[in-house]
Each structure stands twice: as C-alpha cells, then as structure tokens.
C-alpha cells in the first residue's frame, strides 16, 4: 500500500518542473496510475520516459508498496 502523495513527490523530485497526477486504480493503493508531463521527456522515446518514472519510484516497488504502475507520459513545453 503506497502513499499517493509520496509517490507524486518522488516523481516530481526526479523530474523538476513536471506535472504529475497519481491515482489509485483499485482502491487498494498498490495498483496506481500516473500521468506525467515533463520537460525532461523531450526527444526521448516512450520507453525512456517510462524508465525515468519507474526509476524514480523504484524504492516503492522494491519494498512492495506498489505492485503495478500504469503510466501515461508526454513531453511538456
């Protein structure tokens, strides 16, 4: 079970200037959905954009707080 606000902060800290929304998909706070628009994504493939977000929240995957994170990413600006 994850703290959605903390997940959002972790993504924002890794991607300064990003617009981040995190939602609970299942009501159990372990299957999350995030929409991330970040200036850092410009010129990157979707794979690399997803890799950056997943890396930012990796500690919460590793400790089992999150089981799944559905992502929609796009360059900002």
């Amino acid at each position, binding site marked *: 079970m994850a703290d959605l606000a903390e997940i959002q902060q972790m993504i924002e800290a890794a991607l300064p200037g990003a617009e981040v929304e995190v939602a609970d998909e299942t009501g159990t706070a372990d299957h999350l959905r995030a929409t991330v628009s970040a200036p850092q994504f410009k010129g990157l493939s*979707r*794979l690399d954009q997803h*890799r950056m977000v997943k890396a930012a929240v990796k500690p919460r995957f590793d400790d089992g707080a999150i089981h*799944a994170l*559905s992502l929609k990413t796009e360059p900002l600006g």
Partner: protein
Amino acid sequence: MADAELKQKVEELIAANPVLLFMKGTPEAPRCGFSMRVVQVLDSMDAEYGAIDVLPALQPLREVTTEISDWQTFPQLYVNGELLGGADIVEEMFDSGELAEALGVEQPEAVSAPAGPPAQSPPLQIE
C-alpha cells in the same frame, strides 16, 4: 546478475520470433490484466506472435530482461528484436496506428473491443 544460460535462451527467442510477447499466463488464459490487454490488442489485429509465460521463472526472467532491455515488468512485447513496451505503450501505439505499422499489419477499423476468436499461437517453452 542474470543467469547466463537463460539470458542466451531469451536472446535466441527474441531473435527467432519477429513478434514475441513475454506475459503472465498464456494468450488463452492470461493471468494478469496487463498481459490480457496486450493479447487483446494483438489478437484484434490478427497479428502472429509467439508468447512466453514468465510465471514459472518470474524472478530469473526479470533479471534477464533488466540486463537485455532495462525493463523489469511484464508483459513485454518485442518486435524485430527490439522491446516495444509494456501494456501502456502497446495500447498507446495501437491507438495511434504506430503498432500496426511496426507489425506490418492493417489497422483494424474498430479501434476498441476486438471481436471474434483470438488468433492462437502455440506457446513457446523455455527448457
């Protein structure tokens, strides 16, 4: 550090199968919603693909794909030897028509709710 023998096997499978899906469960009986979504997309396009059930060796395969593609979660769809993405990216590319282009198939007219019996591929085994 991934198991070298398994890594080689996976690399051979990716090279030998133009479209290869690593998934939880089988196309006939997906064991995870994300895997099921990718199967539905591929079946709606009548795409031919190989499928590997990762569940019998989840952690070793996770270590292998981390080394090969820097990607830890399943499903993973490989096209012509390259990782295309997981469920989110595959669905986005389907909606935009990029997936049809990558697979060299026609974009189905109905963009959602695939109908009809799934195109079935024999499951591949990792010994």
